[in-house]
Structure formats: C-alpha cells, structure tokens
C-alpha cells in the first residue's frame, strides 16, 4: 500500500472515531479536554497456538484470584496455612473489613478481570505484569477498534481468518443475569457510572447500550429498607444487579467516604442483605494489590494444585528488608510502583529517571516500604507500527490486556484484547494519558 493511500485510510479511521465521539478526557490541562485515543491501523497478530496458552494461563489465574477472595473474606485458610503473610493482606489499602463474612451471589468476585501481559523480547514468553480485578476498563476500544478496522480495511479480513470479539457484551449480560438475587428471566440490571466527566464515560455508555441495560448515576438510585430502586418517570423501580464502574471508596457515603456524592447512601446495607448483586464485588482490590501480586503463582498452586502457565515478572517487595536494601542500591535499573495505584501513576522508571526523582523515591521507600514494589525493566516486545510524524513503519513497544469474564465455573475470554502501543520512539509507557495508543488485536483461527 502506498504511503498516501495509508494516510487517507488513517484519516478516515480517525474521522470515524471523532464522529462517534470515541474520546477520552485529559484532566491535566484543567479543562477536561476530549481527545481521540490514538489508533494505529497496523494490527497486532497473535497466532492461535500462542493464544491458547494465554487463554489457559489467564483462566487458571482468574479462578485462583476468585478463590483467594472467597477465602480471604471467608475462612482465611490461606492465612492459617501461612502461604501469604497475614500482615501483608491486612495492611493492603483495598482490603475491605466490611466484606468479611458477606456471601456474594454464586461466590463470584471477579466477574470481569483485565490482566495486563507483556511479552519479554528476550525469551518470547508472555508474562503477567498486573492484575486488574476492580473495574478494569478498555474493552470498548477493543470492540470499536475492530469495527473501525473492518470498515476501513475490509479486504484484510477476507484474507485472514480473524476470531471475532463482538460477543463480549452478550457474555457479560449473561453473567449479570445469573447473579440476580430475585432470579427470574428479566432482572432489572443497570450500569452505574460516575457520570459524564469520568474518563471512561464513553465506555460506560457504549456497554450499557450494547448490553441493553440502563445507564445510571448515583443520583438515579435510592435505597429504602435495604432495597435499591431507580427513579423513573412513573415512580420507583426495584434494581437487582448493578454493574458498577465506580470505585469501592465512592460507592456508599454511609459505609465508605462520607464526602462521596457519586454513591448511593445505604447501598452496602442492601448488598450485605443480599437484596442486590454488585459486579465486580466490593473489596477486590486486595487481590490486585501490586505486592499481593507476588503471591498469585502461589495461589494457583495452593487452590488449584496446578503449575502457573504464565509467569510473573520478577518482583521485589519493599516490605521485605532484604529486598528493600537491594532495591535501594539498584534504583536506577528498576521500575518502582506504588502498590495501590494504577494507570501509570505513582511510578518510577529507573533508567529514564533523573537523580532528583530517584532521591525522592529513595525517601518515599524508606518512609513507607509496604507501599512499594520494584521490578526489573522488561524488554517489551515490539510490533510494526505507523509513525505519524515520519509517515513510516517502525517498531514500537506494546503490551496486551485481555478481558476475562467469570461466571463461577467458566472463564470466557474474547480472543485478543486491548493492545496498547507506546507511539513515541523508545518509550515504554503505553498509558493513553502518557501518549500511548492502541491497535486492533487479531487472534488467528490457525497459526498461518
């Protein structure tokens, strides 16, 4: 394809995103400007055998994480058997005491999980970089990217046998229907959004529409006698299932942050009474804490008696004095992360950091070691990508976030996931807030 022709297609794709309002919000400029999520027309291709391995690895990981949550808020066998230190679990910021002893519908905590994978450029192996089992976002880009790609490059899909992804909303709806406490064929299900100013708002509207469920804000709901209702033009209607995209802290001002205006007073009471189902469950943050992460391979062995298919990236827990002293001596070669943060915030990338930033992190690590972990810099694999500044193809670093749905028995993963790409030459940071973009991910039916 000639560069001019490629450029034309690229503009067509961009225009399609703008027209549909597929944008995210940048807060740093104070105005909350909407931007297009940069999209790279060159797809990332995953052969089928590679995908099967990923699928198996993610399946066992999600089941183990769910069993860990059942256990830690229930009998706590894993603590009694000393597989993981009690102090590490209890000191986790997202460990939720209010959840101890709560029976969640069908025992499901991690209805939706987004597991971030990277491919080590040396070994060629996929490694797990992070688990996200609170309110992972990004699936709408997977679905929209695919739609724009099929419109822009229809012939490419005729030439390759690419596995479809568009059944995701139906699978998620199915799971939500199953957890309704009232049962019945037509439970009232809603998607709870913080509102129009949230950076993932587009995704919330997209999913609600695709799933055919009501998109609600906190102010649309009210709790009376432990029953959740929504306010309709003809009065109150009982709500059975809430797919919530609001963090735990903001869900219910009576149970958590009293200054939250996004939440619904009394929601936790209704949840604990079993009158409403929440997806994902409350308190999941204890499972995707970046220090707990170090123990997930042990969870897989402990709960499933299986060997992990996908390995972790090596990790140093700063709460461990030996690890801490190693990390302090090698700060300029390591990536340091705060354990409870996500989205690329609270991070130090040693090789790229100045001496002031390193000194700053040294102080922070000494002051609160439990709050930090460190990992070696992974040589992220690269994928051919279009560089808009030169108009040429060049290798750019990528990662992969597949979306895993868990119905209590099966883990369903739409083939592929969100491939994020660091569009700046040499950059390792793929977050959209820091100049990252995305690509369509093609899992092929065969290995060709």
């Amino acid at each position, binding site marked *: 394809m000639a560069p001019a022709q490629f450029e034309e297609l690229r503009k067509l794709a961009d225009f399609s995103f*703008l*027209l*549909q*309002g597929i944008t995210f919000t940048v807060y740093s400029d104070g105005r909350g400007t909407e931007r297009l999520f940069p999209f790279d027309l060159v797809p990332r291709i995953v052969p089928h055998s590679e995908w099967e391995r990923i699928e198996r690895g993610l399946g066992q990981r999600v089941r183990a994480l769910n069993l860990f949550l059942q256990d830690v808020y229930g009998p706590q066998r894993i603590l009694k058997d000393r597989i993981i230190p009690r102090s590490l679990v209890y000191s986790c910021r997202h460990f939720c005491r209010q959840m101890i002893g709560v029976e969640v519908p069908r025992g499901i905590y991690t209805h939706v999980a987004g597991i971030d994978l990277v491919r080590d450029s040396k070994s060629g192996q996929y490694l797990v970089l992070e688990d996200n089992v609170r309110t992972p976002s990004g699936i709408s880009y997977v679905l929209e990217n695919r739609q724009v790609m099929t419109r822009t490059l229809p012939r490419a899909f005729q030439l390759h046998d690419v596995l479809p992804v568009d059944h995701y909303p139906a699978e998620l709806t199915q799971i939500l229907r199953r957890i309704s406490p009232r049962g019945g064929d037509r439970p009232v299900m809603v998607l709870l959004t913080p*509102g*129009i100013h949230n950076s993932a*708002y587009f995704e*919330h*509207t*997209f999913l*609600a*529409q695709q799933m055919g469920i*009501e*998109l*609600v*804000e906190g*102010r*649309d709901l*009210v*709790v*009376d006698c432990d029953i959740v209702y*929504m*306010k*309709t*033009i*003809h009065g*109150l*209607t009982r709500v059975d299932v809430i797919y919530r995209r609001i963090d735990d802290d903001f869900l219910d001002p009576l149970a958590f942050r009293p200054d939250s205006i996004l939440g619904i007073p009394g929601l936790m009471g209704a949840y604990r009474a079993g009158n409403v189902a929440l997806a994902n469950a409350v308190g999941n943050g204890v499972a995707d804490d970046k220090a707990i992460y170090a123990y997930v391979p042990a969870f897989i062995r402990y709960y499933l008696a299986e060997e992990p298919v996908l390995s972790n990236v090596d990790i140093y827990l700063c709460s461990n004095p030996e690890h801490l002293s190693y990390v302090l001596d090698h700060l300029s070669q390591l990536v340091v992360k705060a354990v409870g943060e996500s989205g690329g915030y609270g991070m130090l990338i040693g090789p790229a950091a100045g001496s002031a930033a390193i000194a700053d992190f040294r102080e922070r690590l000494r002051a609160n070691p439990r709050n930090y972990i460190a990992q070696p810099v992974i040589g992220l694999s690269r994928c051919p990508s279009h560089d808009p500044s030169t108009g040429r193809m060049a290798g750019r670093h990528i990662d992969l976030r597949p979306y895993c749905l868990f119905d209590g028995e099966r883990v369903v993963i739409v083939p592929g996931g969100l491939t994020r790409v660091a569009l700046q030459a040499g950059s390792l940071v793929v977050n959209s807030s820091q100049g990252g973009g995305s690509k369509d991910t093609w899992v092929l039916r065969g290995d060709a």
Partner: protein
Amino acid sequence: MMLSRIADSLFWMARYMERAEDTARILDVNYHMMIEQSPQAYRLRWDPLVAITGEQERFSTRFEQATPRNVFEFLAFSKENPSSIVECITSVRENARTIRDRISRELWEDINSLYHEVTRYNPEDEIAVGPHRFCNYIKFGSHSFHGVADDTLPHDEGWNFLQAGRALERAEMTARIVDVEYHKLVESAAAGDAAGNHQWMAVLKSVAAYEFYRRQYHAGIEPEKVAELLVLHAQLPRSIRFNIAAVQQSLRAISGSGPDAYANEAERLTGKLHESLMYDRIEDIFARGLHTFLADVQKSCRSIGEHIARTYFYYAVVA
C-alpha cells in the same frame, strides 16, 4: 421504563436545539432586513433582538449600545451568553452525551458532528460575510436533528418528552417575538417611522410564515392580522396555539390521560392555556391588551416547564 434523568435530558436537549434554531432565524432575517434600512434605525432593530432572547441584562453589562457586530457575536458565538447559538448547541451535545446509550447511534452522530462543525466556525470570518451562512447551517442542523430523531427513535415516552421540550420552547419564543416586536412597532409608528411594514415582514419570515400570510389574507401587512396568525392559528407550526396543542398531546401520551381529564398540574395548565388559544378571538385579546396576554402566555409556559420537572424529573422520594 424511563429514568427521570433521561427524560429530563431529552426534554432539555430539544429545548436547546429549538432555542438555537429560533435565535438563528431571528438573527438571519433581521440582519438582512436591516441592510435595507437607514443607520438611524439600527438601534430600533438590534435592541429588540437581544430582548427576544431574554438576555438584555447580560448584554448591557458587556456593551454600551447594540451594533450589528456585537449583537451577532453575542447571540451567535459568545461563551458568556448561555443562550448563544454555540452554547445552545454545546448544551444539546452535553445532554445527548449523558443519554447516548438511550438515543440512536444516528442521532448521536448527527448531534456530535453538528457540534464539531459549529465550534469550527470562526466568529471574525462570519461577521465579515454576514450571518446568513452560519444561521442557515444551524437551521439545517435543527431540521436534521428532528428528522433523524423522528426516523430513528421509537415514538415512546422519551420521544414525547423531546416533542414537549421543542414545542414548549417554541411557544414561548413566538410569544416573546410578537410581544417585543409589537411593542417596538407601536413605538416606531408614534415616531413616524415608515419602516414598520418591513419589521413585520421580518417577523413573519423569522417564523417561516411570510408566504403563508400572503396567501391567507391577500392583504398588506397589518399588525393585528400578523398577531392573529402567530398567536391563534391552528396549523401554522410556529404559532403559539399549534405548539401548546403539541405540548398537550405529548403530555397526555406520557401520562395516558384521556381528552377530558388531566393527570397533573402541568397538564391542567397546558389544557387551560390551550382552551383560551382555541376560543379567544384576536379582538378579545386586543381588548384585554396584547402585551398582558402574551406576558401571561410566557408565564404559563414557564409554569408548565416547572411542573413537568416536578412531576417527572425531580419528584420527592420518601425513603
């Protein structure tokens, strides 16, 4: 099943779109009428335009006197005027964005592209070429909005809130146009200004009723006849009566009340206003005073809006 917040957004989305279109119509027609007039008549022409949109106070804190330039800028583009066309279109889109899961993809894309197009206009360029290009685009935008809405949304409760919002806004706007213009016309006639006829032609054109008037009355432009047409005509889509009837029809469809009953205060007030628009003659209205009558219409419209909100959007929840 319809969330109160969604009904609220549909209602206001339509109101803002109508406000943008009405403002564009008024600007467009009057600007071109003005070109044919003497500069002395400027003040008489431009002040009322701001008055019609109800933003005199905000305008006078910014400008000492009205000029074609500052009125156009203020009504079409100003970010400081929440009723400016660009701000209205922005509000249409903000409302649509909060309910985009509930409207058709086509409608959302139509609104979104209108918004992106409108914010691309450069005020200086438009002032240089005159308002027609911009205003015409807004009119098309509004027509497209309603066409797409009618053709892609289910004609359910939500659609009825959309219809009610548009009709209520339009009824109030027409009442204000007639009120302000009639007042000014009386003034200019007293001052011996022969431009009165032109003003009334402008009014008729701004509500797309000029040709209809000619056919209907085969007469010169007489203020009483113009008023009769714009206030009382049953089939003219921008007359007050036509729009109050539309509000009534939408509200009944939402509540399911029959022709001889009302389900809430908004319906009662709408029905009462519609009765008077049906059975009053223009002579009766002039006998009572046109201004008084139109002031009452505007008051009723505001009241109806408040009661729609109280009944459907912000009802008290006893929990």
